[in-house]
């Protein structure tokens, strides 16, 4: 408003100045009064226009005010709806701690291994009471482009960095890129941490293939097809330091993995996912321990190529898609692995000569396979029962043109197998207690009854599980 007043004054002043500056010498009375009239007219016309303008501005302002009022109301409503937490806690990542403990009743076996298969390591098969890995997980959006995730496995005097990665939130066109250390998208169970397994111990397929699961330090590119059926190819390149590869101190990629997953629904009650994946890597002096036919310990290493094919299938059922009371899950995976290269072996203890005495070295070639199939049924709310069958086929494993079993008996021609049944109770999504019985024949000559009692509890923000 102030501006208009000033404007009006300036106008008047100008008019007066103009009036005064008109040649005074020739001004008659008539002219003077005419001029006065003119000014009066101008003044009134301006004044009316100005007041009109003022009125318009006022109404516009009041409208804006009303709109603002509305906006403020809406905001306060929104603010009421969404109670703001302190800004610091809001920026904290989601933290979760997963506690798992076990009581295992097993035979006293010196060196647990899978007969016929070069050991992948990573066996925490302790007898009696123990706490397994305690998992600590942190995750949050890094910014508008990236999401970050970290998973640490805490074991005595040791922290294993299981996963630390970033992932793009949306590259567009269905692409997403993951980088860092991550569990490979191979197969079905591979991306699951032990707390998400349906049984107290790992299946023999993953035990033989990777020890626990295959992790990469590298990059993963996924593409999700723009179709109603889920079709997702992926490719990964990485360091390839984990079994079946080894850390080889080189530039470039030490392992390449690729595959495709597909999935969909059948009606409202059934859904499935299936996939095929391939992993290629190389090992350099990948060490192992074993024993010869006379049960004398040997040590050795393998250098060469390793190729793995993995097929996976999952089927889930819940009446009308409502999992609360009853649901059923079937999962099966099949693998095939070829390894070829050079194998060295020697006495573990020079004072205790074995079949490898004097250090043997020769060509090694193997073609092995295996599968597991498991079914878990929730027969009433909170209670599930499950059965799992594991079977490995040692296939061919030749050393220096003859079956390796003649030299290293722990790699002899034997097909490991195991039956497991379990019962678990989950009072909420955050806790689970499990009882499991296994009939284990994973070693030649073994026929072991194993009992497990397990708990899995999670504190904090427990992230949603994948399919």
């Amino acid at each position: 408003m102030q501006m208009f007043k000033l404007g009006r004054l300036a106008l008047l002043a100008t008019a007066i100045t103009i009036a005064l500056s008109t040649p005074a010498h020739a001004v008659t009375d008539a002219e003077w009064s005419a001029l006065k009239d003119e000014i009066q007219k101008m003044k009134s016309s301006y004044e009316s226009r100005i007041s009109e303008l003022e009125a318009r501005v006022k109404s516009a302002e009041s409208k804006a005010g009303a709109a603002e009022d509305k906006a403020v109301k809406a905001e306060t409503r929104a603010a009421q709806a969404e109670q703001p937490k302190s800004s610091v806690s809001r920026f904290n990542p989601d933290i979760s701690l997963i506690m798992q403990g076990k009581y295992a009743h097993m035979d006293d076996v010196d060196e647990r291994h899978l007969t016929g298969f070069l050991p992948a390591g990573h066996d925490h098969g302790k007898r009696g009471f123990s706490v397994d890995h305690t998992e600590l997980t942190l995750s949050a959006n890094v910014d508008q482009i990236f999401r970050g995730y970290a998973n640490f496995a805490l074991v005595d005097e040791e922290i294993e960095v299981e996963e630390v990665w970033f992932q793009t939130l949306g590259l567009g066109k269905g692409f997403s890129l993951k980088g860092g250390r991550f569990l490979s998208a191979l197969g079905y169970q591979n991306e699951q941490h032990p707390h998400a397994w349906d049984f107290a111990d790992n299946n023999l397929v993953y035990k033989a293939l990777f020890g626990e699961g295959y992790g990469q330090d590298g990059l993963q590119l996924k593409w999700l097809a723009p179709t109603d059926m889920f079709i997702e190819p992926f490719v990964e390149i990485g360091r390839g330091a984990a079994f079946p590869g080894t850390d080889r101190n080189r530039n470039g990629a030490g392992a390449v993995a690729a595959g495709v997953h597909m999935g969909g629904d059948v009606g409202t009650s059934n859904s499935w996912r299936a996939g095929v994946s391939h992993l290629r890597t190389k090992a350099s002096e990948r060490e192992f321990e074993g024993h010869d036919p006379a049960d004398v310990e040997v040590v050795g290493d393998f250098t060469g190529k390793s190729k793995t094919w993995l097929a996976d299938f999952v089927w889930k059922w819940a009446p009308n898609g409502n999992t609360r009371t009853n649901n059923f899950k079937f999962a099966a995976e099949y693998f095939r692995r070829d390894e070829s290269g050079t194998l060295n072996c020697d006495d573990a203890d020079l004072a205790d000569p074995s079949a490898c005495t004097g250090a043997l070295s020769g060509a090694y070639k193997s073609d092995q396979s295996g599968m597991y199939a498991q079914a878990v049924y929730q027969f009433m709310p909170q209670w599930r029962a499950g059965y799992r069958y594991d079977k490995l086929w040692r296939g061919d494993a030749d050393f220096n043109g003859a079956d390796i079993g003649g030299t290293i008996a722990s790699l002899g021609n034997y097909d490991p197998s195991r039956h497991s049944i379990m019962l678990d109770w989950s009072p909420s999504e955050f806790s689970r207690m499990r009882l499991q019985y296994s009939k284990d024949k994973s070693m030649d000559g073994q026929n072991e009854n194993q009992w497990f009692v397990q708990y899995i509890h999670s504190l904090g923000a427990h992230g949603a599980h994948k399919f």
Partner: protein
Amino acid sequence: MDRIKFLLVACLLLLGGHAQAGLNIFACEPEWGALAKELGGEDVRVYVATTARQDPHRIEARPSLIAKMRQADLIVCTGAELEIGWLPVLLSESGNAKVQPGQPGHFEAARYVALLDKPAKLDRSEGDVHAAGNPHIQTDPRNIAQVASALARTMAQIDSVNAMKYRQREQDFQSRWSQAIRNWEAKAALLRGVPVAVQHRGFPYLQDWLGLKEVVALEPKPGVDPSAAYLAQVLSGLKSQPAKMILRATYQSDRPSRWLAERAGIPAVELPYTVGGSVRANDLFGLFDDTIERLLNGLK
């Protein structure tokens, strides 16, 4: 001849343009799917991720849902942590930048209504509590009206070509809706002050709207199934503080409420809870027509 050709080409262009225009909407729950259809008409393609027979707290992050979310321009969900067990997986696995939190394509209905039942204490021993408040907002039609105006704004923002149409449909919907609310309120006047028992605390907004009085919940803690012993306790509680009926949603098991209804001698009323929850609840209007009628029948 030329003119006919021109007309044909124009028609084809229009048709082609029509097929491409519009929004792909992924609705987390049936009520928001129905609302999006009301507001979007033929300008949207709506996919509803869950049905009235499913518990929206517990949905598997199925591959089909990931594939659908990949194609969405807009997701319409409840928010307030209702979908916390599955939506985050879909979001990260879909790799769809348009629907990530904070984007215009990420719509959470609960942000536009005042939530009830904010827990005084956040502790998992209290059961499945939602920090932001009770997320089952769709049982009060006044909430639907508020969400409708916000959703129409969002749709107009994302699909600006059709903005006017969304606004018009919203106005049309709001006038029909407020008329319907007046009718429902008139019919439901008898329900004011009626004491009810609920299986899950899923109806605070319905109770707030109609003036029903919740005297007891069958679940000892939210999301925790009642044991027989607990139900017996509820039964004895009902003697001193009687309820007229027991309410439960379609997706919930009927066993606890049936058990209690037989012993307490009061009816167990299954409410559709969302669109598709009963034969009559085939759209938002049918949902409340049926809800009110079932409640009134429960009173008889």
